[in-house]
């Protein structure tokens, strides 16, 4: 079995890439994708830890996380569409109706 | 260990090749069969006998369709329209074909055979989560069509792609529900075990095929499968009269061939799934390991190898028959309208599938077959 450190490091890298993506990118959709990356990194961590602990908890959590991701995607994309209908933009920098 | 690996590799290649060649035969059937049903001649060089009627030219017959067609297409110019996403345009056909090809490998096409002391199962990969694998790979089939449509920089193509994606996603749900009820019936995700579970008889004569316990699921899978293949009456993504081939309108040459191949391979795949899940796979009615146990009590002994090989043949026969059936449906029915398609999927098949799962669950619990 691959040492846990390796798996967790991989998960950490992907998580960090996701975080960076959310911060760097200004396209809302891509930001959302980066969030999905983060969730995947988390899932990887859960799976890796769970299999080392020999408990199914980790996998069950991943199951739940995927469900939540699906729900989030439905709602999030709905919001994105709704905002695009009004504003014709998905650029975070254009959403400046409210400042300070 | 090694021999299993080698056998596995061989079986995988075999299965993929079989699937692809089946697709080629389907191409032939497409040409001639549709003509037959629609009372026309069809492509006149494509005959089984291969004897040219005119000028004494050698007619290559079936080879003309199955070999010459692909060869011709692969030698045509590969055209990529201006403004297209070159990378994705090239990738799309393979994204389309690949999931289908890797799906073939989990389909059990026979029982086990004994080769030099090694018992080798006649399926390329005996996965414990085979059914999930199926669903996963089928789910990935969407991307080929979707990206082909998007990358072509053509609005007909994009429309086709969108239609294809929506349709496939919608019908996958029904397909999944049908498969789930079968899984519940047999209590396993392993396809080989599902097939094995369909061995034997009820009441002394009725084969224990799942089509008898899950008729609704069979219909669901049949319809959903037909929709997955994007063929008439579900061919809205590529409907010639509206979208002039839909998502692969901008494809030519080899890539176009790949798409067409995918179509037929999918058809074959659906037939295989139906066979595996509902028609007993490689099971032959009343045939046991040792031979036929006919309903009347008659017994016909057969060697194990023969039984296994007969299973393979039976599997092929069932698949081909189902392919023909699917083809006949195609050549018979008119096309849906898109809203009808969606309504059928979401308001017809999905509720039915849920209902079926529910009933199955009750029955399974009531008969005490819960782990």
């Amino acid at each position, binding site marked *: 079995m691959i040492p846990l450190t390796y798996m*967790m490091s991989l998960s950490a890298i992907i*998580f960090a890439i*996701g*975080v960076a993506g*959310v911060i760097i990118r200004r396209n*809302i959709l891509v*930001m*959302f994708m980066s*969030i999905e990356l*983060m*969730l995947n*990194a*988390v899932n990887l*961590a*859960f799976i890796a*830890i*769970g299999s080392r*602990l020999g*408990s199914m*908890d*980790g996998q*069950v*959590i991943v199951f*739940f*996380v995927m469900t*939540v991701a699906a*729900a*989030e995607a439905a*709602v*999030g994309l*709905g*919001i*994105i569409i*709704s*905002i695009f*209908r*009004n*504003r014709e933009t998905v650029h*975070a920098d254009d*959403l400046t*109706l*409210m400042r*300070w | 260990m090694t021999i299993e690996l080698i056998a596995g590799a061989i079986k995988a290649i075999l299965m993929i090749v079989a699937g692809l060649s089946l697709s080629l035969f389907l191409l032939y059937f497409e040409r001639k069969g549709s003509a037959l049903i629609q009372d026309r001649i069809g492509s006149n060089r494509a005959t089984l006998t291969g004897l040219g009627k005119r000028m004494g030219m050698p007619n290559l017959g079936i080879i003309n369709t199955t070999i010459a067609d692909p060869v011709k297409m692969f030698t045509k110019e590969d055209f990529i329209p201006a403004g297209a996403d070159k990378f994705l345009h090239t990738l799309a056909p393979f994204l389309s074909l690949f999931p289908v090809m890797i799906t073939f490998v989990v389909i059990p096409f026979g029982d086990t055979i004994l080769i030099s002391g090694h018992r080798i199962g006649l399926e390329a990969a005996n996965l414990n989560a085979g059914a999930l694998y199926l669903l996963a790979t089928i789910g990935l089939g969407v991307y080929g069509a979707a990206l082909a449509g998007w990358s072509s920089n053509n609005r007909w193509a994009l429309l086709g792609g969108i239609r294809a994606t929506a349709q496939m996603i919608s019908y996958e749900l029904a397909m999944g529900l049908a498969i789930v009820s079968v899984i519940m019936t047999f209590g396993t995700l392993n396809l080989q075990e599902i097939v094995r579970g369909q061995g034997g008889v009820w009441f002394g004569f009725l084969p224990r095929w799942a089509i008898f316990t899950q008729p609704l699921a069979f219909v669901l899978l049949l319809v959903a499968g037909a929709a997955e293949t994007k063929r008439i009456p579900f061919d809205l993504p590529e409907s010639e009269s509206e979208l002039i081939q839909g998502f692969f309108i901008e494809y030519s040459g080899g890539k176009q061939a790949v798409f067409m191949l995918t179509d037929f391979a999918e058809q074959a795949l659906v037939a295989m799934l139906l066979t595996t899940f509902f028609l007993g796979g490689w099971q032959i009615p009343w045939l046991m390991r040792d031979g036929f146990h006919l309903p009347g009590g008659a017994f016909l002994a057969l060697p194990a190898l023969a039984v296994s090989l007969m299973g393979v043949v039976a599997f092929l026969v069932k698949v081909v028959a189902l392919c023909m059936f699917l083809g006949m449906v195609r050549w018979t029915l008119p096309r849906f309208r898109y809203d009808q398609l969606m309504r059928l999927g979401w308001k017809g098949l999905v509720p039915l599938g849920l209902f079926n799962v529910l009933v199955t669950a009750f029955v399974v619990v009531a008969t005490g077959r819960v*782990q």
Partner: protein
Amino acid sequence: MSPFNLAAINFVWLPILPMVVLTVAAMVVLLVGVRIDDSESEGLGLLTLASLAVAFVFTLGILGQYGVAFAGAISIDSFSAFFELVILIAAMFTVMMSLDYAAENRIPGAEYYSLLLFSVLGMMLMAAAGDLIVIFLGLETMSITVYVLAGIMRRNAKSNEAAIKYFLLGAFSTGFLLYGIALVYGATGTIKLGPIHDALASGAMGSNPLLLGGIGMMVIGFGFKVAAVPFHMWAPDVYEGAPTPVTAFMAVGVKLAAFAAFMRVFMVDFAPVGAQWQTVLWVIAALTMTGGNLIAVVQTNIKRMLAYSAIAHAGYLLLGMAAGVQSGPAILYYLLGYAFTNLGAFSVVIALERRGEVGNQISDFRGLAARQPLLAGAMAIFLLSLAGVPPMAGFVGKFYIFSEALHQGYVGLVIIAVLNSVVSAYYYFYVLVAMYMQEGGVEVQRLSARPALVAAIGLAALATILIGVYPQPYIASAANAFHSASGAEGIHSAALEP
């Protein structure tokens, strides 16, 4: 036979009965609402109100009971009951505010009220959770519905913008929370709160970096939800853009639920390693108070001002958390007073608001006291309570938290908080100035035709004063609630007999 012990699940219906009621009610609202026009959704609102009241009654039954249910997924204690009751009250107030607002602004009634109920369900789950995954799912149920509620005025560009900002940062923070859960899971080997506590209490975990990393990540996750600086940037935009009843619901309900979970995880279960996270919370609390209050000073939009004030209040609450377990009851009491006060304040904002965003500016409050003395008086009560002026609830809450924090020796933090209170007085009093000492502003319409809204304002004002003037029973119940979670007879006791 099955390797899974069904008997150990411990089916106890009592703790989830209110949630079941809410779920059923939400579905009924959805089904009934199909045929109801958006401008006539009051009936749906009343139905929602009734179901919340029923849930409230059922929740009362949890008080005084202790144990765990559903294999540790649900904690039964007064802590959860306390939070659930306050959340339900907040939801009822929200519905009372929404009755006319929703109809007037053509908010789709069926969706709105059912989402509200789902959201309450999520909040109650967060309050009653017995493991981290239920907290997570409750949080998501709450958040996802609130994302939608924030953006439910679809033709309103601000509402859209609020929804997308809330959504993106909410989902972002969820990632951190989950990663934190993963690391804690790795460190302790479980995600059930009781066993986590036991594992940490054994003392072997003190400086396990995995645990510390997990705690840090969870602080970030919860920090986003409670809008703590520097994770607050979504709050002002979202509060400003969302429909006002939803803003009230977010400012109160979401905060309550987030603190319920935050407190249960940190002040109960991570209490054995308190030294590790209290310092972090110290810094965050100081930043949150200062940041929230300073930026609130320059606001011209009342909702935005209240948003920053809500951030500042989160800072005071975090101060309580940073001060450790002793101040638990104080935080509960503070939240109780905060809930009524804020709900009342937002109700007044709604009373002023008309379609097209009139009435959202602080300048719109000008001269209110001359035109609507009672309304202005109620707003004055809420503002004074928020500013922490005796004898309102806000004062006693602050007093309680500060005193507990001082008793733990957090003199510096308390002094920061106190100076912040002065800053906050400035902007709260600015609204008083507008109401009482200036002319102009917008006319309040149809107040008499909105009995539910008036009732909400009146009840909130009454509660704000009552809780402040005679705090003893509320303090006692807050203390009882907190100790039921953290005390000896808390979540770690044997399962409740069904």
